[in-house]
């Protein structure tokens, strides 16, 4: 475990060194991610500025929801997105060969070798939005509630990771998954705008248990605003555990079916 952590830190250092080789690109990434964030913020402002309640949620809860989704998205981009986004390409080109022949977990290496510090300001700005949302709801956040919220956000980031990994493991078995990637983008965009509490019946089953994008921001928001029930929390934790176990098993299954590429 300690060795893995040391190696992950080294990968992060190398990524930073790599980025610093290109000065414009290094500073540009902060600008680019900051701009994306501002655009998102303006879009939400336009949509929700004149709405006081959606599906029983107050304006304050909506702001927390938006901020929470933004934190999870920013953590995703900060830590692992750029590492695992190219897994299908690496499978297709046979580039996984170099990962499989080294005495370090290929998945850990892929996950942490492309951290993106440009997303740090986005994380900070998203936290500020959540703080603003909390002040609007008038909730008093104790240290333990704050820590529980942070833990839940990290678990939901893990769930997002699981989903991305599962979809990017499919190319071990089929040639092209472009359609699935497009569907993923659409689902994320949809769930970035609609809180999970709005889903009912079949759509709730889909977005809570099959493609659980619906709970990612909803459950931490419910926790912070005092609306999360114990069964709701247990359900969310269960989904994270099941998807994490499935993602890892599916990855191992995929690796066993890796055929490399002809040279």
């Amino acid at each position, binding site marked *: 475990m300690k*060795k893995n952590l040391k190696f992950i830190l080294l990968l992060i250092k190398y990524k930073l060194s790599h980025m610093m080789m290109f000065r414009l690109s290094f500073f540009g990434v902060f600008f680019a991610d900051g701009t994306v964030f501002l655009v998102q913020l303006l879009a939400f402002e336009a949509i929700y500025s004149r709405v006081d309640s959606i599906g029983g949620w107050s304006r304050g809860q909506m702001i927390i929801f938006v901020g929470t989704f933004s934190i999870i998205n920013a953590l995703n981009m900060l830590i692992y997105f750029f590492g695992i986004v190219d897994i299908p390409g690496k499978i297709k080109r*046979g580039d*996984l*060969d*170099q990962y*499989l*022949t080294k005495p370090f977990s290929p998945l850990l290496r892929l996950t942490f070798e492309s951290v993106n510090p440009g997303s740090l300001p986005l994380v900070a700005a998203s936290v500020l939005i959540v703080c603003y949302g909390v002040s609007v709801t008038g909730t008093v956040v104790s240290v333990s509630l704050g820590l529980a919220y942070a833990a839940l956000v990290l678990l939901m980031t893990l769930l997002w990771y699981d989903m991305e990994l599962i979809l990017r493991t499919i190319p071990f078995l089929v040639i092209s998954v472009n359609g699935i990637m497009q569907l993923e983008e659409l689902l994320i965009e949809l769930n970035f705008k609609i809180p999970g509490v709005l889903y009912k019946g079949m759509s709730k089953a889909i977005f809570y248990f099959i493609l659980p994008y619906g709970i990612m921001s909803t459950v931490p928001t419910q926790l912070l605003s005092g609306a999360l029930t114990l069964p709701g929390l247990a359900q969310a934790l269960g989904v994270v555990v099941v998807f994490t176990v499935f993602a890892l098993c599916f990855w191992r299954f995929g690796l*066993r079916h890796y055929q*490399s590429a002809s*040279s």
Partner: protein
Amino acid sequence: MALIEAKNLTKVYKRFEKEPGLWGSVKSLFHRRLVEKEAVSGFDLTVERGEFVGLIGPNGAGKTTLIKMLTGIIPPTSGALSVLGFTPNKLQNELKRQYAVVMGQKSQLMFDLTPADTFLLFKRMYEIPDDEYRHSLALLTDLFGAGAYLNMQVRTLSLGERMKMELVTALLHDPKVLFLDEPTIGLDAPAQRQIRAFLKEVNTRRGTTILLTSHYMEDVRSLCPRSVVVGGGRKVYDGGTEALFDAYQTHKKVTVQFEGETAFTAPDACALLEQSPHKAVFTIPKERSGAILEQIMREHSLSDISIEEEDIGVVVEKIYRQETGARL
């Protein structure tokens, strides 16, 4: 116990066939005809500690597939395989720490950083102690005389310099087995010579077992006392390299340029491959090459002459034909 032991190793790939054109594409949406291709078939191989073995064969013979199975990258379809007592496709780190693989067309260097950065990453990955790392790095860079470009951005290095750095990277942790897949591909003659000298030294000094695939006769001939010839996924020869070339490399390929327009007729026992008024390309039997060339030079005015060894593919085809009575 042998370091590498493969018995009846087989790898079958499945690929689908599509009829040409748009209609073929539409049909392939609903029905795909899978075709099986046996890349490696019933392959037996035993390699002992310290051996330097050449894997020879034309494109598509199954050499790279074999290396990929030996390194655990892909699983065999059937057969038994043991490398250093491990089953490679279980991908155990204990095995990976004991071998290294260099693929001529796939780099493990970080392109935008320096070779020294990659070395440090590998030091951590293979948990090489500081003293051992310093000693290993000094030895390897000294052998290559490559100290000057350790701190240069990899993307600015020439192909030959990059390949040297690939080999240093692979050997830092002093692996017991080194798999080399076309390490000299695309390199000029001086770089090829340097790499050959380096590999010979590593094999002798460190006792590293090396399995080399190459298209270049000279690589195999100057480095590998033992050769394994692969054709159509099968082993068609396993034995001494010199004996192989003595037995099967029976002809030389000669290209002559004439000073003026010449009506050239190939001497007896020669096979004409190409002819124009100013040039002729033909093969001659090795044992009669001196006499025949003397005769040609006596009868014609030549502006240039070059003599090459027979192509590796031709040698393999001869062996394969002799073994099976078939053509590749």
